[in-house]
């Protein structure tokens, strides 16, 4: 597989708005703020940014509006339809656009009032829409939300491998501990296994309320440019070793017609990303494994090869994924606790981890000075983090991956 782009491109700026439930403003206003924050983070002016990429599900504002708001005149832009796992794929598309000479510096953004406007869980607007096309085989039966679309995979996996709700709860517990050290997190409260399994059921047998991510209003931005261009920018560049996306299982949206249905896209994406990036699992210090639900984390750990198939329950309960463990996962709290961003915040967090300047409660985090005390209200910087990996989830059938090095 071609590795000619390994380390040639990097992420030089990241930014976001507040994570809230009631932004009180438009996706346009939030998108402009997130891009502006990322430009400021990178030390770039609007004249330096000549590419824009976004993704949406009919719930955002296109680049063509926000380019006016910020005085950006792109040589390249695309607004892509897509949800989870788009972040990593768009990092790759930005690299491709630059490599093709279409642009020099690309801002990728996602803006969504995922709680107050078009709820990501389907309540309201989406549940009221007429039923047509492929939905005719699902929504008349009351099957509409993301967790429902994934639940046949989750339930079948529970049967095949003996996963319990307690196993899944450990993922939420770890991410909540991480979020307690993240001033930006929507849900900073640490929770216990009992809190999770005693929260109300959403879908039996695989999802209590606290197994589900947080519908959130927010915008996020990541800026990609060449390593050459990055040399005189403000931040230490974070180099892209390899990216894959959106890799797919046989059958796409209709993957339940094939099998095994407890297998997810990481089975296909995993070997390609490690080969492309030229690293092994052992080289990775911190992961961002997409946590739309606790179960998406467990399935991806298995199929990306962090453990054997069926041993995901042991991986997530072993302490490996906790801060202070061998390879912490979603140190910001992720979608379960920081806020739901369709994957952007997990890449943003890993960029900050690799810079060594995670915005925790350490008084001198801006200077990269951390206590490494992971008690509540303390540090969430991973010591000496060199390599990160993101695993984006679209559905059981769709996934993306990104490996970065400081």
């Amino acid at each position: 597989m071609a590795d000619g782009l390994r380390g040639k491109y990097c992420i030089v700026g990241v930014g976001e708005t507040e994570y809230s439930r009631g932004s009180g403003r438009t996706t346009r206003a939030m998108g402009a703020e997130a891009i502006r924050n990322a430009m400021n983070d990178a030390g770039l002016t609007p004249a330096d940014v000549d590419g824009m990429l976004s993704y949406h599900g009919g719930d955002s504002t296109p680049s063509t509006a926000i380019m006016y708001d910020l005085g950006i005149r792109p040589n390249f832009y695309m607004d892509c339809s897509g949800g989870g796992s788009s972040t990593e794929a768009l990092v790759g598309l930005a690299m491709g656009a630059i490599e093709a000479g279409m642009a020099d510096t690309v801002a990728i953004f996602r803006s969504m009032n995922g709680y107050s406007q078009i709820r990501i869980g389907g309540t309201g607007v989406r549940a009221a829409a007429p039923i047509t096309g492929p939905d005719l085989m699902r929504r008349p039966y009351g099957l509409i939300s993301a967790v429902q679309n994934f639940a046949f995979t989750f339930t079948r996996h529970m049967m095949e491998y003996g996963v319990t709700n307690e196993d899944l709860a450990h993922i939420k517990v770890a991410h909540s501990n991480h979020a307690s050290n993240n001033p930006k997190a929507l849900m900073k409260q640490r929770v216990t296994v009992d809190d999770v399994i005693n929260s109300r059921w959403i879908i039996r047998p695989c999802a209590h309320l606290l197994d589900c991510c947080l519908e959130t209003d927010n915008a996020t931005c990541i800026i990609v440019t060449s390593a050459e261009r990055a040399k005189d920018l403000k931040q230490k560049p974070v180099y892209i070793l390899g990216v894959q996306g959106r890799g797919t299982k046989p059958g796409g949206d209709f993957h339940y017609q094939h099998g095994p249905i407890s297998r997810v896209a990481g089975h296909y994406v995993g070997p390609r990303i490690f080969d492309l990036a030229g690293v092994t699992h052992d080289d990775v210090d911190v992961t961002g494994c997409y946590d739309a639900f606790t179960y998406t984390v467990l399935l991806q750990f298995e199929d990306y090869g962090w453990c054997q198939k069926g041993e995901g329950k042991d991986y997530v309960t072993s302490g490996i994924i906790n801060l202070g463990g061998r390879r912490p996962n979603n140190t910001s709290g992720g979608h379960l606790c920081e806020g739901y961003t369709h994957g952007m915040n997990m890449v943003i967090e890993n960029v900050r981890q690799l810079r060594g300047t995670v915005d925790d409660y350490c008084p001198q985090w801006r200077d990269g000075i951390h206590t490494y005390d992971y008690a509540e209200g303390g540090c969430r910087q991973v010591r000496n983090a060199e390599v990160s990996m993101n695993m984006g989830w679209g559905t059981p059938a769709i996934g993306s991956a990104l490996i970065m090095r400081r």
Partner: protein
Amino acid sequence: MPSYDYRGQAIVISENDTEYKGYFEAAAEHRLVVKRCTDCGLLRGEPGPGCPWCTSLNWEWREVSGKGTIYSYQIVAHTVIPAFRDWAPFPIVLVELDEQRGQPDSYDGLRITANLVDGDMGPEKEENVAIGKRVEVVFHDGDDGFALPQFRLSGEQSEGEVWSHSL
């Protein structure tokens, strides 16, 4: 363009819907159909325009027995659809039909989503829902000629492992 109301939801099947219109026309006659490739002869559970195995675009509707086995399931304790609140908790099942099981590859099957219903077309009790149980199709007749395929327990001996979550 036929439009129906089912449990407070607007169901719109357009005249040019080459995927699903025939499926619901057959359901109105209480027949469960799948698409059959007229070149390689394989059936497909999702009624798309092309054959996933030979790329042929030639197909016909083929009636199936309507018998199958629960392959996976979910119990909807919380629904985001207002018209389903009086049903919750209710089961949605993924049914593997008897036809073409394990063909052409060992993990392949014709798998259809539906509710598991009881004798009154209401939601089957949760304790009766399990992977491996045998089911058969029934048709819920709605208004204006709309009919929805559903499944109920057939009472036949189950095959292989029967699994359900503990209550």
